């Protein structure tokens, strides 16, 4: 992937000052969503989106660049098949079932 070192014109302190509170709130939204999932009624096993979300969360703290692109790739359809028609298909769901190695 492209080297993007020092492409943001702000220094680290400026980025933190400008964006911390906004992203603190978003992080709490994610936490509350996961709590809500855990508190939900019924015995259904987690669907593929939950697994994908936890895998994506793992990428956030791996210290490597291009987190956004890598999360988007993780949530992408990587198959080669082309169905003939969209008839009966649901809208986009935002994630696909993970295959072995996707969460690494």
């Amino acid at each position, binding site marked *: 992937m*492209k080297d993007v070192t020092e492409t943001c014109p702000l220094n680290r302190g400026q980025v933190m000052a400008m964006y911390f509170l906004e992203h603190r709130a978003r992080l709490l939204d994610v936490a509350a969503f996961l709590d809500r999932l855990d508190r939900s009624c019924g015995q259904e096993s987690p669907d593929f989106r939950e697994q994908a979300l936890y895998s994506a969360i793992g990428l956030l703290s791996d210290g490597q660049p291009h987190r*956004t*692109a890598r999360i988007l790739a993780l*949530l*992408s*359809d990587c198959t080669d098949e082309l169905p*003939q028609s969209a008839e009966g298909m649901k809208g986009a769901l935002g994630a696909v079932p993970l295959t072995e190695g996707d969460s690494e």
Partner: protein
Amino acid sequence: MKYIDPHIHMVSRTTDDYQRMALAGCVAVTEPAFWAGFDRSSAQGFFDYFRQLTEYEPRRAAQAGIQHFTWLCINPKEADDPAFARDVIALIPEFLKCETVLGIGEIGLNKNTRNEQIILEEQIALAETHNQLVLVHTPHLEDKRKGTRLIMDALQASSIDPGRILIDHVEEHTVGEVLDRGFWAGMTLYPDTKMTPQRAADVIEMYGSERIWMNSAGDWGCSDPLAVPKAQQEMRRRGHTTQLIDQVTYSNPQKFLSQSPRFHVAET
């Protein structure tokens, strides 16, 4: 600060949106033909829509002092029935004569099906035959990466210069490949499913400002017709120069769109 919104569906917006956009600095919009939120039942429905895009909407925009241009096609979501799609495509050559039509768009894929791909290729051929610019819709969410690659493969199988094709709705996992393959890239600033102004500014910082623009793609869904000036503001607060902000929100769209002899922004 003046700007061009090169992808917005004004038929779905109110007149006061035009007024607010003009106040925010918008001087011109280009409106691709798209899915109206429901499937039209006949080609006649598209005939009326194309008249709205070429006759009515430019007049409504002019009342706010905004120039309105358009693109024509059958959108990928309604292109899954090839026979129906061909009836619509047959209408397009006559409308290509209208003075505000810039090209074919937004064509592309939705669910990456073979039927959509057939109609995509036929509309690429239409653009090729009539020497038109092309504006491309890429699929949403999990379908985007695969669909974007399929679309670029189909476009590169044609004789159309990639410099005359804009691939829209790029995100961080597709923008690099789009630019590397010689196409223009469009970033859609959308509250939920696409990009925020902050991420768009990040992409400019990481991938540069050549062959790239931003648009709101404002439509009938959750969208923001003032997304482009909000991205200008985001770049400004990061300390980017006025020259860079102007490039990605005015000069770049002007440069790409001016490849059509019909596109000209009146100096005020």
